[in-house]
């Protein structure tokens, strides 16, 4: 992120902040969608993040920390969204065939479904840990800091999340074997 742009926005320049929004919106939206698994919630979380960022930016002393700060705001907004009660709405993802072709073919549809189901069972903080670790490739120290938890807690929560996802994959594998053998 352009440091001067952040400094101008901090000093109240709305045009500079608009540039920041345009540059970061897609990435924020992708991360929020992965965490919330819901495009409407992702939108709400991203908008809340950007409103808070604009509102509180004058207090940011070290502009080089803007991106980490923005990520922290997004993480908190996503967690709050997930905790704000479940909406009675099912989002069906329509997979574009062209897009599907671009996906890694080494993973089966069943694997993806199993991971999706396992991921949705994770609590909000575990989702954040998994997405920031495996998608954003952030070190656990930074993720722990974003979540406001000790490093050891982040490690143990990630470990539990992985165990839960592994269990989901293995349960699906067992079901697949059972079906193949005509037991299910």
């Amino acid at each position, binding site marked *: 992120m352009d440091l001067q742009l952040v400094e101008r926005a901090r000093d*109240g320049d709305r045009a500079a*902040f*608009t540039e920041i*929004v*345009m540059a970061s*919106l*897609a990435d924020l939206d*992708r*991360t929020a*969608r*992965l965490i919330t698994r819901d495009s409407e919630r992702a*939108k709400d979380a*991203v*908008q809340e993040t*950007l*409103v808070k960022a*604009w*509102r*509180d*930016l*004058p*207090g*940011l*002393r*070290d502009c080089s*920390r803007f991106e*980490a*700060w923005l*990520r*922290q*705001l997004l993480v*908190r907004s996503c*967690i*709050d969204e997930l*905790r704000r009660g479940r909406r009675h709405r099912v989002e069906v993802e329509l997979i574009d065939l062209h*897009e599907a072709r671009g996906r*890694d073919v*080494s*993973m089966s549809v069943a*694997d*993806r479904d199993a*991971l*999706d189901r396992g991921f949705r069972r994770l*609590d*909000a903080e575990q989702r954040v840990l*998994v*997405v920031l670790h*495996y*998608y954003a490739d952030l070190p656990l*120290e*930074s993720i*722990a*800091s*974003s979540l*406001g938890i000790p490093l050891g807690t982040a490690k143990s929560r990630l470990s539990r999340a*992985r165990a839960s*996802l*592994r269990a989901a*994959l*293995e349960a699906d594998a067992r079901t697949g074997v059972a079906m193949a053998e005509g037991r299910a």
Partner: protein
Amino acid sequence: MTTERDLDRRLSTWLHDEADPNSSPAYLGETLTLLDDTPQRRWLRAVPIVSVVDRRPVPIDRRIVRLALVATLAVAGITASLLVGSGPRPAPSIGPAGNGLLALGDGLDLLLVEPSTGRVVDRVPDALGTELYPAFSPDGTQLAFFSKDPIGDAYGGSPRRLFVMPTDGSRPPAELTDDRAAWDDGEPAPAWSPDGRQIAFVALAIESGVVGVFSVSLDGEGPRLVIGEEGVQRGMFAQPRWSPDGTWISYRGDTPRPDDPGFLDTSLLIVPPEAGPPVLLATTTGQNSSFSDHAWAPDSRRIVYTRRASAESADDLVAVYDIEARTETVISVDGVPAYRPAWAPDGRSVAFFEEQAEGTPSLVIVELATRERTDLGPVVDCFFTWSPDGTSIAGLEPGCKGDAVLVPVTEAGRGVTVIVIPGTATGPISWQRVAP
């Protein structure tokens, strides 16, 4: 069987596939309109009044210092004479007091909450990261807290900056530390001196590399090193606490093992606030995180703490240490992990968490004279604090993932009141003491 590496690969692949790199959210215009309706907060930047960083002494004209001192004393004297007799009575610094506001974090900012109504009366934002570990001064007129940067720094931890502000919001927060100087590995609520004039905290003096317990005066003097060493690891000094009579600062420290100085034991020590040789109270061998959550009784003669049950055990117990008698009394049940003790304001009983087979820990109160136990059940989790009048306890709701709760201590877990917190209640809670 899914191997670790296989799981990592599948997770990474799945997430990257799910995140469409070409997606372009359709709500850019809507977001910009939202921003049009949002004014920027004109945050009053915290005013650094002192710095913990060791700086080379600068020659100062002593006549100017004397003049400044005389002027400051004169202003202070006039202000004091105006205030005496006209303001509210201060809360007693020790023992039961009236119940004021609750201070707790919501994950980013600190909230000041009126406990009887649950109304958020003020928000303390800093926009620099997470504000956490609030601590009201003994008389309830000041609030100290740490602000944590969003990301760790070169020291590999989570550096914090110490702020203090008047509870009535009449002045913006003033910073008592420089960037990244203060931190503590073990839940470091700022430690107020009983007269409310100083705050002890653990810090790294960046230029000298000294790690230790520092004390900073709100009068503008300090910070000064109470005890510390150059170039040692961070855990060597942790969790400073001021005795209620002001004669000692206790802390958890690592000390060389007498029979094998190459190894470090975890010890509980006390040191005079004006600095001096530390006094070793108790030591455990080879057990990290022992003597956590220690707290002074109002009589300044006893300290309650959590420590490991034994070198072989991973479980904690709660014990009271009598400083004069040099004896320890375990007050938790043998074999049942217990932790995070807190004295009742009258010093007669101690509340702590007792682990259950699963789920939320039970909150237990033990009357020390009779050993009578009151089990309030799994009503609060993670952090709690006594009300200054000793009639109730405020804590985080079970699971520590949402609201705060108030629990009357006399009704064995009945009559729990939920205080709805905007966002997520996090971290320790401080309860303001006011004149009853």
